[in-house]
């Protein structure tokens, strides 16, 4: 029921993001999502690739500090208040969201929300009980 995501530590200096995207691009790895959490000194690049395992191998070989994280993925209708409803459920259950991002695929009328939470199992159970549609890696 969980979506795998790769996280890469990156120093805040020119050329680093290119090195990462190029390393994957030249091996034919396609990104599904990509987001960057940035601070003054460093960033964490988080992404989902079509082939996460291969992307992980490639980055490891290139010397990147990379790890695999599991996220909860939720599919909602692409309409106002859809995100708020999911967030409200989390809040009611007193569950902390570490980070979250969302994206919309143009040929669908749904939006996907990906989030990292403290207690993944509990969050999954709660969302399923509430009838929220969860994504798996394959659906992406």
């Amino acid at each position: 029921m969980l979506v795998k995501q790769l996280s890469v530590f990156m120093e805040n200096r020119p050329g680093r993001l290119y090195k990462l995207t190029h390393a994957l691009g030249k091996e034919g790895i396609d990104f599904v999502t990509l987001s960057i959490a940035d601070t003054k000194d460093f960033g964490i690049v988080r992404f989902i690739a079509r082939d996460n395992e291969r992307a992980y191998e490639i980055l490891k070989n290139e010397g990147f500090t990379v790890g695999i994280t599991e996220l909860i993925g939720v599919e909602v209708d692409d309409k106002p208040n859809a995100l708020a409803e999911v967030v409200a459920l989390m809040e009611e259950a007193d569950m902390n969201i570490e980070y979250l991002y969302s994206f919309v695929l143009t040929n669908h009328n749904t939006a996907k929300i990906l989030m990292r939470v403290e207690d993944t199992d509990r969050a999954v159970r709660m969302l399923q009980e509430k009838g929220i549609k969860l994504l798996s890696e394959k659906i992406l």
Partner: protein
Amino acid sequence: MAVKDYIYRPEFECMTRSEMENLQSERLKKTVERVYNNCKPYREKMDAIKLKPSDIRSVSDLVKLPFTVKHDLREAYPFGFYSSPASEIVEVHASSGTTGKLTVVGYTQNDIDVWAEVAARSLAMAGVSKDSLVHVAYGYGLFTGGLGAHYGAQKIGASTVPASAGNTIRQLTLLRDFGATHLCCTPSYAIFLGTEIQKAGMDIKDFNLVGGAFGAEPWTYQMRAELEKLLGIDALDIYGLSEICGPGVAMECMQKHGSHVQEDHFIPEIIDPETLEPLPFGSEGELVFTTITKTGQPLIRYRTRDLCTLSDEKCACGRTTVKMSKVKGRSDDMLIIRGVNVFPSQIEAAIMNVAGVSPHYMIYVDRINNLDVMQIDIELEGNMAPDKVSDIESIKKKVETEVNSYIGLSAKIKLCESGSIQRSEGKAVRVIDRRE
């Protein structure tokens, strides 16, 4: 107004060479006897080379004696180098050692008196008299800077203000309002104070400063020129290390060309740091001291690791004591940052306590606005899985805390990608000192 250099103790500071050597010989013999009979590490060192106190008859026999290094003191931590019963020790100081363990020095009342004497002689070179007001902005505490200057100024009978370090605005207010004539602190902090006067809305014309003794870190003649201009003073270099006694081991006279070593208390030598052979006057090498009047923790041929030259040329000030040049470097990798001794090995030991970082690091030292600033770049461990910003931030915080508790100084920590810090072939380069 210029500083009036005067000779505090002419009967010792202006001795002829033969008088000095006779005095040194007498005092050396007594010291060797004392350490042999009372200090186990020295008895073992001397027994190992079959040397008896009676083999030491004059200063020319000094070369027969074994060396002492910082490591020896650490091995005997905390009080194993005392040559007096602990009941005779009245004060204890300590400086940072190479792996986080402190180097401890115990002083008897006699040793405190010796220290006050040499510090008084030093401050007299900067013109400190009974009528002076000496503002001490060195840190007071285990570090010898604060109390050394303090004892010297009090011995002379000057008004002594133990301001200690920190709080720039308060320092400037005290200096101005009390009408301090002399300032004692690290040269970089003095320059910093000078540059802050205007920012604090003050005017140097309202200050009474004429001179100062600045030390605890190496500084250049360019820094002197800047400091003298900023504060309108004569700025003199004071040298010392806690193992020998603290500030006052040597001090620059108003000739501003080399520092007079208080030879009737500390015999200086220059050796080749590789072969350990003594070198003649004028050759650059490692400075070595033998204390000949201390009783608590006398040291025999203590290797300071400071590189400099000694000179017996006649000085225009009238003193006849040997002079040492400015310290030109170190024969080990010790750094002096804001007056604090820092060894890369201490930083390494601190880093090793934190999970998530690798032992690959690089220390950068800069002087920004006349203050020493240290940055440590450290690689994250290769197999760590980074995901949450807060996890990375907490690793950074931990490194900061550990480094601070090991060396007593804060450093800016920068976490780097694994493999990004240059690996060197052969001896690892761990420090890049970009200070002028």
